[in-house]
């Protein structure tokens, strides 16, 4: 009877979230799966058909996948390249300054990301901040980075750098710096100490940060929509267009969504595999 009472409590506590997530999260994902498997037309015809997955492999789409992957990898790489030294630098400061510096890396996360992207538009557009600054400094040539892949990478790095620094800082701050001293004592140069001691021991942070940035950048929608223009479409924009813009193709949009999640799952799976091996 004790068991029964506990089971009743459990059911009562889990009922609302099960219902809510089941109805408004899992069921919709199921619908997407169904849509991906039916025929196109008006905008969907309920006829079982796998052709959406064939249209997925259209060269035009493959080009966009490739661009998305490249931009996501590039973003991850840049974030790591500048984020690691930053996290290391912060971790070496005295405690008060350390907390402050860390806080100021994370603060932009809380600002409205749409607004921040808009700020970059203001900076990068023709006759915008950079352009007029260069002009005032005597450069005659007008520059406009807006609506280029460079602008998209700048925007993505801006959005996701805190995602990289947060786990990196976590693992570097926990790191016992007497180990570096021990390595020096045993004859290692600073670079050797970094490669043989610091980097391997902070690898979990590197992995977690890279995964977060990669997954987020791959699924992004707003940054390319605002900073990339029509020429630098990414995966997310493609999904949106197939559902909401002409020519509508819901089955293709659904297949694109599932393919995106598949890619992310591979990333997560890889992350957990590497983590398990190193543990």
């Amino acid at each position: 009877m004790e068991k029964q009472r506990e089971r009743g409590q459990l059911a009562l506590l889990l009922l609302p979230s099960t219902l809510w997530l089941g109805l408004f999260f899992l069921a919709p994902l199921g619908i997407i799966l169904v849509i991906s498997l039916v025929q196109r037309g008006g905008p969907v015809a309920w006829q079982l058909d796998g052709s959406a997955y064939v249209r997925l492999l259209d060269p035009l789409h493959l080009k966009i996948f490739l661009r998305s992957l490249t931009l996501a990898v590039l973003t991850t790489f840049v974030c790591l390249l500048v984020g690691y030294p930053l996290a290391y630098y912060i971790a070496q400061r005295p405690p008060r300054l350390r907390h402050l510096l860390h806080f100021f890396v994370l603060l932009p996360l809380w600002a409205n990301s749409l607004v921040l992207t808009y700020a970059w538009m203001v900076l990068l557009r023709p006759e915008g901040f950079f352009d007029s600054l260069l002009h005032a400094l005597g450069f005659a040539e007008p520059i406009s980075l807006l609506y280029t892949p460079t602008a998209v990478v700048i925007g993505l790095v801006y959005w996701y750098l805190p995602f990289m620094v947060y786990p990196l800082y976590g693992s570097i701050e926990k790191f016992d710096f007497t180990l570096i001293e021990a390595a020096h004592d045993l004859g290692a140069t600073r670079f050797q100490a970094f490669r043989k001691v610091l980097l391997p021991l902070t690898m979990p942070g590197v992995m977690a940060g890279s995964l977060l940035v990669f997954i987020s950048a791959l699924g992004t929608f707003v940054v390319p929509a605002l900073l990339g223009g029509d020429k630098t479409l990414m995966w997310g924009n493609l999904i949106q267009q197939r559902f909401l813009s002409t020519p509508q193709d819901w089955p293709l949009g659904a297949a694109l969504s599932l393919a995106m999640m598949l890619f992310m799952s591979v990333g997560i799976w890889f992350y957990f595999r590497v983590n398990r091996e190193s543990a």
Partner: protein
Amino acid sequence: MNERSLSTTTRATVPIHRRATLWDRLLEPVLGVNACFIYVFLYMPIVVLIAFSFSASPFSAVWGGFSIDWYIQLFQDSEIARALRNTLIVASFSMLFATIIGTMTALALSKFQFRGRNAFETTLNLPIVIPDIVQGISLLMFLVLVVHLALGLPTIIIAHTVFNISYVAVIVRARLHGFDRRLEEAAMDLGATEWQTFWKITFPLIWPGILSGALLAFTLSLDEFVVTFFVTGPGATTLPIQVYSMVKRGVTPEINALATLMLVASILLVTLSILLQRRRSS
């Protein structure tokens, strides 16, 4: 052997290497420059935006004189007032629902072992991981094709509550993780029923966690754009949607002012929540 001779032999057998290479000496300054560069990168857009919102020449790096015209224009804009109202309604309701449901879920997960627990936890975390565009699209399809619900504020609230449940559950669980279950046992041992134990012991002690979960839910809902973009309907424009459509129509000085206000509001909100937490923990 006296002390002096001992020290000389030591010195002789262990020669001191000075291994400060160029790389070693440059490392610290390079790290410092890198850090400076990043902070400039992070805050330049914010600073420039705020400056522009007060500048008579709202997009040029050349200062055009101080002006609050854009703010005056903004406050006279009834569309924006409506969007603000909608945003607050959505944020409040989704915070309320998500806090209650998320806390119940966290309590169940911390207290009970049950079959299918792993699957449940995975599902619970999925809304955090799954790209917002997929969440938005799938919910839109579900609403349009299956339940035929009219798009509007209720559908936005439903959508925001989905991911907020996950975030609240994560935060409250973290709080419950440090919670000593023996306190509950002690209360029951002293005659408190389960219901009394929850309200007298558990709730007061995990309350800060619930509060920060609620604050996070509120903030996330205020800022949410992508999911909202898909499930919004006529008359249910929120502030982020309003900003997006204004930006798409063309960059105007009015957006500078609106963006500045939104930035200041979120920074104030975060600072407030951090101060609250610090006071609580001390």
